């Protein structure tokens, strides 16, 4: 039977575990920091020497750790892109904006085990010669912000933060910075603008890659809360042992946020790729199955921005056969290992590892309507395709779920979404378009039936059989006056 695997979540739900530093240290807290800071330089086989900081950077690379915030990019590689020759200060920002719908994992760490994050951050800062770092926490988490400030104070008093940390001569300050309710602050360059005291308008890349031109135009590392926590465990376990957790290229553990139509919604830590989507939903150790009498309709596998998967889908995955050759193998939806690569091969993504389950009682039209309203509300408004398109998508899905749809709306929605993706400054454009493209493609009959029914009802009440124009352009025009 598949089991949860508690690495990051090891302590935080234990009875009697409290967020203060005393409790954290009684559970081995800050031992990784002490160990890392006392590490000698490392001799390489070719006679070269790695400074202890360089050695930790190499270890993070070797551990295979991939970002837990959304894109799943190699943490070690990201760190290696940092411009270390510019002479400018290097900043590190912890992305604690957690606002991708469906995601509630970072909240657990921030509220119950803030020192784990702080220790991971200090290690990451030390490895990257960072002297000043920020935790950007979403505005709607005021309690967590206070807990973090308290934890930072404790860490300072204990000599883990501030000047001359543990007598090594290394100085570091970490401050908490609060957002104020905008989803786009989770996008790393929007976050940086927001931290500079501006509207969170994402920056265009190139040239504004944070590793080179980030906060105050200085090299900057942005990592998710959970990613930074893993650094502590890489130090404690060593990269080789750490990489044995999970599966090749998908190492370590991951906290899955499970919500929607399951018996036991919640956050479950798993070894990446060692538990399937089906097990996450049906196993008594995880979701515990659907509500009585219900059948599965769809799964949103990686936060609201990921493409939806339909019950019964079968995917072609690359698998290594017994002969060591790669071959395409059929894998059905519920047998998909929950990891970065399998979900990508299934045409979607594990994103922020938020799984939202929909059963047969749900209307896909209404569901998409809910999501599209989110994106319409959250577009920062810089790019025309996103600002206007996200609103049109929301209006069209809204009318479809309020008895005013048209049969052509399925095409109309697809048409708009296709004109957003790939044409915007940041990945929010894709985030708004992907749910629409996948919902309409996979549940087209539902969208068309709804539109046709609305048209028929409308024609009947008008006493005419000619429905409104279905030309997308005129439809867009009429939407604006809606």
């Amino acid at each position, binding site marked *: 039977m598949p089991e949860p695997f508690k690495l990051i979540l090891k302590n935080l739900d234990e009875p009697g575990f409290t967020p203060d530093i005393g409790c954290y240290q009684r559970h081995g807290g800050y031992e990784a920091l002490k160990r890392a800071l006392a590490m000698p330089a490392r001799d390489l086989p070719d006679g070269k020497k790695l400074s202890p900081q360089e050695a930790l950077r190499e270890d993070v690379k070797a551990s295979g750790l991939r970002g837990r915030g959304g894109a799943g990019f190699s943490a070690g590689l990201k760190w290696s892109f940092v411009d270390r020759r510019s002479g400018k200060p290097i900043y590190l920002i912890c992305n604690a904006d*957690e*606002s*991708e*719908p*469906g*995601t*509630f994992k*970072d*909240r657990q760490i921030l509220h119950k085990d803030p020192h784990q994050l702080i220790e991971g951050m200090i290690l990451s800062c030390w490895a990257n010669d960072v002297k*000043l770092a920020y935790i950007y926490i*979403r*505005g*709607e*988490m*005021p*309690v967590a912000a206070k807990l973090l400030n308290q934890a930072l104070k404790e860490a300072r008093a204990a000599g883990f933060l501030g000047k001359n940390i543990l007598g090594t001569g290394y100085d570091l*300050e970490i*401050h908490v*910075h*609060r*957002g*104020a*309710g*905008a*989803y786009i602050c989770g996008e790393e360059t929007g976050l940086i603008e*927001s*931290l*500079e*005291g*501006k*509207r*969170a308008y994402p920056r265009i890349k190139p040239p504004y890659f944070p590793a080179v031109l980030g906060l*105050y135009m200085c090299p900057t590392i942005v990592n998710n809360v959970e990613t930074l926590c893993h650094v502590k465990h890489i130090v404690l376990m060593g990269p080789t042992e750490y990489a044995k957790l999970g599966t090749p290229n998908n190492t370590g553990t991951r906290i899955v*946020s*499970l*919500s*929607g*139509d399951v018996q036991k*919604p*919640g*956050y479950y830590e798993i070894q990446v790729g060692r538990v399937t989507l089906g097990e996450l939903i049906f196993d008594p150790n995880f979701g515990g199955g659907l509500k009585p009498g219900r059948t599965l309709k769809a799964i*949103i596998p990686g936060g*609201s921005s990921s493409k939806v998967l339909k019950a019964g889908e079968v995917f072609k995955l690359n698998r290594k056969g017994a002969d060591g050759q790669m071959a395409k193998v059929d894998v059905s939806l519920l047998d998909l290992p929950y990891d970065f690569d399998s979900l990508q091969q299934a045409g979607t993504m594990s994103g922020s590892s*938020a799984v*939202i389950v*929909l059963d047969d009682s*749900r209307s896909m039209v209404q*569901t998409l309507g*809910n*999501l599209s*309203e*989110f994106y319409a*509300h*959250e577009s920062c408004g810089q790019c025309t395709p996103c600002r206007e398109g996200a609103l049109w998508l929301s209006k069209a899905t809204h009318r479809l779920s309020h008895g005013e749809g048209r049969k052509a709306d399925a095409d109309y929605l697809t048409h708009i979404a296709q004109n957003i993706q790939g044409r915007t400054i940041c990945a929010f454009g894709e985030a708004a378009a992907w749910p629409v493209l996948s919902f309409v493609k996979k549940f087209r009959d539902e969208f068309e039936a709804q539109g046709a029914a609305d048209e028929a009802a409308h024609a009947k009440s008008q006493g005419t059989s000619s429905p409104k124009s279905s030309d997308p352009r005129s439809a867009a025009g009429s939407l604006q006056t809606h």
Partner: protein
Amino acid sequence: MSFSVPASLEAELDELTTHYPVKRSASLMFLHALQEHFGYISKDAVEWTARKLGLQPINVYELVTFYPMFRQEPLGKTHIKVCRTLSCSLAGSAELRERFCTRLGLDPHAHAAQTTPDGQFTVEFVECLASCGTAPVVLVNEDLHHKVGTAEADAILKQGQKA
């Protein structure tokens, strides 16, 4: 009424400013603190912040209009934020918000934030509060309430009457 920031709050904000190599970075934290103290962000608060941070008032005002958490008018003493987004919606958050509105004599169909005439309550729909596993969730001032059913909703209102 003249605008005045208490010395202790000003000292706190001056300390906050030292957290950043560039003063402008402190603007969001200033606005949070001023909103907490005064209940909303007035024109005076915008100008005061701009003066303190060496900015033009527009640099601060554009933040107030961009970030949904900032308010330009006073809100109810009990601020009820009901999560609108998918997982909470599946768990009945639309009905929940309607219940709050109906009980408080507010328009259950209006979408924007609404405040009761006596200034006791504001009810608002907000986007995902990052607690989807305990849907539907409601943020009441700073406290998050989980799996809010009708009994708990009524308890929140009862508590708010006393505020």
